[in-house]
């Protein structure tokens, strides 16, 4: 489960969000959001997953149905089935870039491109199939296919045979690489532009007047969502494998705290202090966008490390490979709801479903490869990977409130519990979290979703492809609706029994 929670967000998104929202100023709402939004929702998703698993459901359509006995519930749950599949496709494509960059670091392919501009052009060539200025876009496709093959192989082998084994090997390697890089970054000598300590000071010294800006709070709440993998439907699928006697309160909190350790202690002490040391505070703040800081700026940093070039190559390999591990464990988790749904509702063998998923992912990823420069991926990332998460989480809270009521859910959550959660969190889960979610959803709808829907500021040559991107997403959702409809018609007795 920690492998699911720890992902690219810890090392790529967190530093950028912190940098863009005032460093220390960001950290205060970040921790408040963790307590009022992240941890309660984590327990809610674990509880819903374990409860649904008891009735043979590992995905949101079935879980929503058994929690809220309403004919519409299963269709609301479709967002928790189509969403992870949509995210899985582009997320795995991006994880493939990390594998590619770890390899290119070892070979020293980009060494010599020591300015931010040169490195940015190199990344664009890597991402764009039509730009062969560095070495051609096919390199990214090859690494995507390798990554996808590993994901398919892992999910085909099942929970204990594949997913747990991957986490068992991957997580210690991730911790080791992150610790080595953290020590290296913190012991870097100061340059004319800055020092690692100045980077730390930036992250931890709040600018108090900025604390009243709503954007900082919303950015912090958003980060908590992404980092804990909330609203994806993956936590529920993993939790559905637990028995009624298994604890979820202690394990859920342990997962959240492990993720926070990785994000705050490791993620917060690598990218920003390194970037501040070599670019200064002003330079670092000008580097916006997760890929610009995590890939471009870090590649320049590795080339600037003291010592022989081999040190920089190894550091680069470790950084991108730890991103690859963090990403691939999340990628495997994102594949799980689709696998679980087709297995449970249609009785397909796991290996066959895994292969089918691989083929579907290749077909859908072709759009990203061909239309990356036109913003195809950006559309999916925004609607499924940003707005969709908050929407799914809001639906989860609504369904639990309508179907079970918070009192009954609280009891359900404490079955087999090794940790009695303080009653304070009952109040938070019942009132504060829904309010927080409503504000987040409402604010994002007005300030981002509506302008994005109208394509404000989108270059005219991108508009057609962005509409195509939305149509493909809608087609995936329509397919998920049809599959849910068919599954319910196929085994009406199973669902009637589940509702009894």
């Amino acid at each position, binding site marked *: 489960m920690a492998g699911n929670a720890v992902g690219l967000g810890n090392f790529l998104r967190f530093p950028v969000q912190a940098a863009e929202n005032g460093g*220390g100023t960001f950290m205060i709402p970040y921790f408040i959001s963790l307590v009022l939004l992240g941890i309660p929702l984590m327990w809610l998703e674990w509880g819903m997953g374990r409860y649904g698993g008891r009735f043979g459901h590992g995905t949101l359509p079935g879980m929503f149905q058994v929690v809220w006995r309403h004919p519409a519930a299963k269709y609301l749950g479709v967002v928790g089935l189509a969403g992870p599949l949509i995210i899985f496709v582009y997320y795995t494509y991006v994880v493939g870039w990390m594998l590619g960059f770890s390899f290119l670091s070892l070979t020293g392919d980009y060494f010599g491109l020591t300015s931010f501009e040169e490195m940015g052009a190199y990344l664009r060539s890597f991402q764009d199939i039509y730009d062969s200025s560095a070495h051609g876009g096919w390199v990214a496709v090859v690494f995507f296919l390798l990554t996808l093959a590993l994901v398919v192989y892992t999910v085909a082998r099942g929970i204990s045979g594949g997913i*747990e084994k991957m986490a068992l090997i991957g997580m210690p390697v991730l911790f080791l690489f992150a610790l080595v890089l953290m020590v290296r970054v913190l012991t870097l000598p100061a340059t004319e532009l800055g020092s690692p300590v100045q980077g730390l000071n930036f992250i*931890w*010294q709040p*600018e108090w007047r900025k604390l009243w800006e709503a954007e900082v709070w919303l950015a912090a709440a958003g980060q908590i969502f992404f980092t804990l993998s909330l609203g994806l439907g993956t936590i529920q699928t993993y939790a559905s494998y637990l*028995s009624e006697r298994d604890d979820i309160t202690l394990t859920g909190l342990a997962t959240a705290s492990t993720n926070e350790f990785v994000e705050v202690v490791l993620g917060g002490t690598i990218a920003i202090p390194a970037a501040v040391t070599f670019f200064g*505070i002003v330079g670092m703040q000008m580097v916006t966008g997760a890929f610009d800081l995590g890939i471009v700026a870090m590649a320049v940093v590795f080339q600037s490390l003291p010592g022989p070039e081999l040190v920089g190559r190894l550091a680069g390999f470790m950084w991108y490979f730890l991103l690859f591990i963090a990403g691939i464990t999340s990628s495997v988790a994102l594949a799980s709801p689709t696998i679980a749904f087709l297995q*449970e509702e249609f009785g397909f063998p796991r290996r066959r479903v895994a292969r089918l998923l691989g083929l579907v992912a290749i077909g859908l990823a072709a759009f990203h490869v061909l239309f990356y420069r036109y913003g195809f991926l950006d559309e999916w990332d925004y609607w499924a990977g940003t707005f969709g998460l908050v929407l799914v989480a809001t639906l989860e809270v609504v369904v639990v409130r309508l179907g079970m009521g918070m009192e009954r859910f609280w009891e359900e959550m404490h079955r087999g519990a090794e940790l009695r959660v303080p009653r304070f969190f009952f109040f938070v889960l019942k009132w504060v979290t829904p309010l927080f979610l409503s504000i987040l959803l409402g604010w994002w709808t007005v300030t981002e979703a509506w302008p994005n829907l109208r394509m404000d500021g989108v270059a005219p040559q991108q508009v057609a492809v962005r509409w195509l991107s939305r149509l493909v997403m809608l087609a995936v959702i329509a397919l998920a609706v049809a599959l849910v409809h068919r599954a319910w018609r196929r085994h009406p007795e199973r669902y009637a029994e589940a509702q009894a």
Partner: protein
Amino acid sequence: MMPMAAALLQEVARVSAPAGGLTPFAALFMTVSMGSVTLLAAYLFYRILRAPMRQGDEAQGPAK
């Protein structure tokens, strides 16, 4: 551009104030935050390892 440049300069002045070091608040905030998440994670994993192992908990998929 000018207000933006001024804001950036202010920001530089803010974070560079204790040249080469952390402000007392930043040091405290960092220590408490990092210490809390580290200790919490360690304590919770200690609790998980100490909890009695249950039989038949091998993940086999949701109950049918």
